[in-house]
């Protein structure tokens, strides 16, 4: 509770944020290229992006919530719900795909609204509120499917994760998932930089009381952030289902990865600082790290340890940088 409200929200320095996440990513990707030189080929880079796309999109959504000072732990469950619901509702009928996609987004928006309303009006801290919806949504998804995959996803749905256009000019191949990714990032960027929403989100995250006094609609800002996050989770679910098909654990553990990605990219937890590039390059860095550890053939378990250590170091380094700047 800062005694003197700062009315002017802190503007992030977009250049700096871009540099931090980008540098980590470039270093990690260079390391990948050393271990496995053909990752420098455009085809494999596109494949890397295709596989990173779900986490990237999820991180962009999570960033909205983090900017406003909250967390969204329900996204993994929402992604799982999207996969299971798609498979049950479409049930192998390609004509149903588009209508079902609409339904999935409606479900996502509903979960986002619940999260936002509970946080904004019932005053439940977001970490608890979204923990609750995580349990709830996961339980609903499992109860609906009976605990195991059901139904079937037709090819036009699977294309979101599998279709790759070959012989594309300049880049060689282009996966549909990468197109979806670019579209989503562009919209998310526009939302924060092309509208008034970005400033409001930063203001709310920095100091909600001050933002309110300055006339910012705090509750609406919060609720929109959760809705955006849920929409990103549904999109992630669609890509995951497309990539590898139906499973009951499609979104498991993604929520913490998305939060970690934003933080590695330089976004500040509890709000006030960050840009869409924090999410993008943070997620790319994290995914490059996973890929690198895989390629190096380390035992699976130690990969967790290294991930943990990197997380601490990345955040520690950001802290240290910021302190020096002050």
């Amino acid at each position, binding site marked *: 509770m800062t005694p003197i409200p700062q009315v002017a929200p802190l503007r992030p320095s977009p250049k700096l944020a871009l540099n931090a996440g980008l540098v980590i990513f470039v270093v990690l990707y260079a390391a990948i290229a050393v271990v*496995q030189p053909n990752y420098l080929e455009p085809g494999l880079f596109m494949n890397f992006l295709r*596989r990173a796309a779900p986490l990237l999109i999820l991180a962009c959504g999570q960033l909205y919530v983090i900017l406003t000072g909250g967390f969204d732990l329900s996204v993994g469950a929402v992604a799982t719900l999207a996969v299971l619901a798609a498979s049950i509702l479409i049930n192998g009928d390609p004509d149903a795909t588009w209508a079902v996609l609409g339904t999935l987004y409606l479900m996502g928006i509903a979960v986002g609204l619940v999260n936002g309303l509970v946080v904004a009006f019932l005053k439940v801290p977001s970490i608890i509120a979204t923990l609750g919806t995580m349990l709830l949504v996961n339980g609903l998804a499992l109860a609906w499917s*009976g605990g*195991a995959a*059901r139904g079937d996803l037709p090819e036009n749905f699977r294309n979101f994760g599998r279709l790759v256009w070959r012989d594309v000019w300049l880049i060689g191949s282009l996966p549909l998932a990468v197109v979806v990714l670019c579209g989503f990032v562009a919209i998310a960027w526009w939302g924060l930089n092309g509208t008034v929403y970005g400033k409001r989100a930063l203001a709310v995250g920095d100091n909600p009381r001050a933002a309110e006094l300055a006339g910012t609609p705090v509750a609406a800002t919060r609720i929109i952030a959760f809705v955006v996050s849920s929409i990103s989770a549904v999109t992630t679910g669609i890509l995951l289902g497309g990539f590898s098909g139906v*499973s009951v654990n499609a979104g498991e553990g993604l929520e913490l990865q998305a939060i970690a990605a934003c933080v590695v990219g330089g976004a500040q937890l509890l709000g006030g600082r960050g840009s869409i590039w924090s999410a993008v390059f943070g997620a790319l860095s994290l995914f490059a790290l996973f890929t690198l550890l*895989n390629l190096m053939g380390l035992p699976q378990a130690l990969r967790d340890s290294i991930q943990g250590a990197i997380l601490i170091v990345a955040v520690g380094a950001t802290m240290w940088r910021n302190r020096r700047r002050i």
Partner: protein
Amino acid sequence: MKLKIILAASVALACTGEALAQNFNDPAEFKKQREQLSMKPQGPEGKPWAQHLGDGMVDTAKYKKDGPVTLCFSNAGVFNPWRVVGLNNLNAEAELHKDRIKELVVVDAEGKDEKQISDIEALVSGGRCDALIVSPNTTAALTPAVEAACGKLPVIVFDRGVNTQCPVTYIHPVGGYGFGITSGEFIASKLAKGDNVLALRIMPGVDVLETRYSAAKTIFDEAGINVIGSEFTGSDRAKTKSIVEDYINRGEKIEAIWMDAGDTATAALEAFEDAGLPYPVISGEDQQDFLRKWQSEKLTAVGPSYPTYQWRTAIIAALDVLDGKQVPGPEWVLPQPAITEDVLAEFVDERMPPLHYSLCGCQELPGYPERWGGKK
């Protein structure tokens, strides 16, 4: 500084841990299960869930109880499709015996050892149960609770065991070595010396899974087949597909895929499709999606099983015990068939969901196929 201390301590721990690693490669058990695989089962023809291997029987006259009975079942959880199918089997089997079973109480431990212990204690102290069926979450952890329950009522354990002889009988199929032998020998027979096989496994440290791998590895080593990698998928389809893609991208030649469970087999195969490569030789399991793909793409494949029909056997055993009949024991070893090219068509059922386990022995049970998520 402090981090250094912790790291040093961790490394120290890691070293001692290595030395005390449990041995999942027991040649005697390997040999025993290999023999059991070819043994002729005793019991009713065509009903593998009521059959058994070997001769041991236990007398249960002292547990005889007339009239309607209450059966209690402490379930480790329904955290994977295998257990989902199994629980449906168990419930359906109980429905067959409506006249004898007054009530079937099922409590779910959600995969938590500690909760399962409390659940068992509550069932026993509740005093309603005439017999207790336990599917333990972990072998060692559940031993004391099962021991305590044995003193009060007849206990039947299935799937994973417990470290005590006190239950009336312990029901299980041949076992992990058997699974690894069936799949390993098939792949070895299709590959040439020096060929590469990629092993995809769910997770480390689970006895029933580790033994599957150790048996297959023994066979691969003997046949001179090269295991180029052993990776853990966590039953995650996306992860499975990514792992296989990574191996393909590295330029590794993969002649065969060996899996310790088949639930992500189709995801592994998709990686080959997406890369435009021919399908490898593969060992999966008895899941519908894998069998359908096998049939439609004419794969060179085998489907070993860890049959879910053992969940039926648990109810049958409990009722036999309360009838005072002799039951196979102290271990009731069920046959563990594998699906091969010849019998594939019998097991494909388009009505069933993708992860339905075909060796459920449930086709004649009430509510088939809807109870298992199938279409009429």
